[in-house]
């Protein structure tokens, strides 16, 4: 993680020491923006109906974007999402409880504007790294009893890639739209537990509670990460911003 952040900082510093060039839109290159990310939750499994209905993933983001080169801008975003899912105690072949995972994340990204456009205007592609801190709680099916909570945030680092376009109206108002793909680092490690959790059904097998149970901290984390990964995998986003200076 450290080396990615170092890389982004080096890029940022280099961009300021580069020869004078036209940067920004009409000389303005700092944007404050808020985005909504959403898409059909195609991998969300509903054990009750034994089908995959079109649920909806939502994520909110807010952050800043600074054009640092003719075609490059740096983005720092805060992200928030929440996702419900069902789980089974393992003893029964149907869901026995409901759980929720909440993610707070920070994303640093580099946006490349292409097609003769000057940042921050026009079509772009972005590459980034996000770190999401996940918190989850596992409850009974009627939600009245909390069986377990994560004892601290579960860290999920994610590679992100996006493509979209940005337009500017009235010299200040920024409209942004695009799509984003998020791939967790851990997916690339092919951790059996996580990999299985991500691509198996949401019909999670988890037995909370007493001794001798199937509960393990790592499986809890794996299921939270798996749910977050599904949430972040593909999203379409629209956003508004203000070009400040």
């Amino acid at each position, binding site marked *: 993680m450290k080396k990615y952040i170092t890389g982004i900082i080096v890029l940022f510093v280099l961009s300021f020491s580069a020869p*004078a060039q*036209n940067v920004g*839109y*009409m*000389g303005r290159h700092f944007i404050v923006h808020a985005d909504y990310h959403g898409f059909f939750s195609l991998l969300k499994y509903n054990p009750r109906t034994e089908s995959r209905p079109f649920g909806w993933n939502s994520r909110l983001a807010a952050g800043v974007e600074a054009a640092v080169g003719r075609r490059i801008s740096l983005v720092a975003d805060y992200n928030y999402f929440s996702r419900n899912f069902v789980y089974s105690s393992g003893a029964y072949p149907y869901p026995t409880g409901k759980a929720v995972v909440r993610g707070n994340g920070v994303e640093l990204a580099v946006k490349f504007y292409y097609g*003769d456009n000057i940042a921050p205007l026009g079509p772009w592609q972005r590459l980034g790294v996000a770190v999401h801190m996940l918190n989850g709680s596992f409850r009974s099916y009627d939600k009245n009893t909390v069986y377990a909570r994560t004892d601290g945030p579960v860290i999920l680092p994610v590679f992100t890639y996006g493509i979209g376009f940005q*337009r500017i*109206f009235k010299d200040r108002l920024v409209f942004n739209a695009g799509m984003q793909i998020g791939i967790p680092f851990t997916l690339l490690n092919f951790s059996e537990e996580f990999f299985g959790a991500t691509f198996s059904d949401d019909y999670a097998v988890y037995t909370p509670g007493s001794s001798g149970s199937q509960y393990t901290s790592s499986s809890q984390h794996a299921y939270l990460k798996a749910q977050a990964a599904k949430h972040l995998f593909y999203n379409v986003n629209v956003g508004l911003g203000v070009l400040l200076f």
Partner: protein
Amino acid sequence: MRTFIYSIQKILSAAILFPVAAGFFASAQTTPDFNDYHSLRSSGVMPGVIDKIRTQREENEEKKDDRKKTTARVENNYKQASAYFVERLLLNGQVIFGDEITAYCNRVVDELLKDDPELRARIYVFHIRSSAVNAFATGEGVICVTTGMIAKLPSEAALAYVLAHEIAHIKEKHSLKEAVENSKRNTRGKNEEQIELESSMYSKEQELEADRIGWDLFRKTAYASEGVSEVLDILKFSETPVYETELSSTLFNYPGFILPADYFPPAIPKLAGEEDYENDEKSTHPNLGTRREELEPLFKKRSAGETQRFLLGEEQFDLIVKIARYELCIQYLKDQEYARALYHAHTLMADNPESYFLKKTAAQALLGLTVYANSGRLSRVLPDEDDIQGEEYRIAFMLNNLEKNELNLLALHNAWALYKAYPDKEQPRVLKEVLLEQLLKNHAGKTNVYSRTPKDTALKASETQFLSDAEKKYVTRKEKRKGPKGDPLLAKYALVELFADEDFASQFKQTERKIQAARTEGVDRSELARIRKEGHDEKVVIVDPFYMLIDQRKEVSVRFRASKERELKFEQYIQQASRRLDLKTEVIDISGIASGDPVDFYNDFAIIQQRLDEAEVNRGMPIPATDYEEVAGLQREYRTSYFAKLRVLSITQRPKARVGAIITGIFLWPLLPGAIYNSVRPRHYLSYEMAVFDIVKGDKCTYREDTQRKNSSEDYLKSVLYDVLYSIKHTSLQK
């Protein structure tokens, strides 16, 4: 794309119109000072036709078309386009309002149409600055007669027939009919050549019709029929100079610089003209032989009666022709026809040998040739001697056979003589400075030394050692050359006499030091770096920024109204971006000029526009302005030498299906929306060209052109404009 922009600009510059109330111009008759002649300028106020055409354009734009392909729709489309271009032509700086030539032409039209006041009220005659021998009419009732045509006219009757022919085009609405005819023509399965052929056939029919109807108009007046034959003779010799005068080779001799006899041709090709050229298939006009055959029987039938070659008076006619002939000197120089300018100025000197203006024209022409020769581009401005007939061949032969350094030396001698004769004038001083610099930059190394010792003395002192190795090589090369050998030592001893003049010797030394210093010290890199980072404080004047929207999906691709509306906003964007950049800019906007406005602003614009055109064609080579005094005056008035041209085209094309992308998208579904979107959306291009010139020196200070795949929405346009202005702000404009 650049060529496309350039061609549109050329179309817009091709001609100029000018409407007139004849009485108004009658008072404009003055006799210019032909010794110190200055280019014609407009006087009085802007004519009423400008507002009239503007109103016509707006009315045509308001009309709603039937979507079906009807004649009415084609006519309206044509009228819109025509009014748009004529409005631009009226204000492109080539038209002269209220000058003697325009006034005279209008009086001839009064004579032709004295029995038809209704038609007279719809006719506007313009004098266009152009060396071409031409006249033309537009659907709006505008007739343009070029300076080249006036300069060649032998009589008022000939002018009357030229105008009668153009009036016939207007009366018969030929341009409109041609547009309708072209739209009806079935072009399916035909190549461009066939279409062009059919179109030109119709055009030729119209020309013959205009000849006949023009004759009908002409014969009702008291003008002599021979005017018609004279016009055909003019057209026959339209490519040749006004005068056919033998120029003495001694004209180009100076003390210590005598051009060898073999630099001049032993014989010259006879002037033949061009009449019955057979291949007129693609020409818009029938060949002259056909026109003569059609016309001569008509005017032979006419009884001579009381006809005259001059009705308004020969003296007045001679005056306007003389003005046009002096005006041609300027036009030839601006069109880079330097050899023609040199010849023409010398032929005019036969009647006015002491004219400062004519001497200045010759000096400027030689300078132009020198700069082009030194940059290796002489062939661009000097026609091949084989293409020239008559006495002009003598000059072309000499210029084609001079070595580059000899040409430079000849030009320097000429400019120095002018400078000594007119020490108080600004232009000769500049010309000799540029030529000295050219000589020392380009030819000091080849012969190395310009001897200060006369040739005879030097030869007596040492017959073997007076040439350096470099000089020996030069002499050997020259002796081996094809064609005239000339004098191998001409250049070496060319300046001996001039060095005897202390003033010259001192200026020579000074220029030498300046060039040496520039070579050793080089450019101030720290200053360049500072400008690149912080920008400069120079002011830049943006002249008549041009913007055009083209939608190739439509039948009439140019969106006239939208172009006009966007052009107005375009200027606001320039000003806004300039403020953000802290770039001092001023926009010369001619779209606001209306009928009745004083012509002063238009006159300034015309000088600047022509100077920019001249500098643009010269590609930034250091050729001082032809109208040097006027341009220098405007430099003082605007407090800057830097003037810019800016042209933007926005083009929309039909979408192009991206089958491959869609197939890929089917397998990689996240990419599918993008693939579909790209297949159905129109393709947009934003093309721009910007050049900043030093209008006094002629340097091209900075230049940018690009075609980008984007639409012309406000944000994209502003971003592009800001970027263009940023490059102006952060580039050193001093060369």
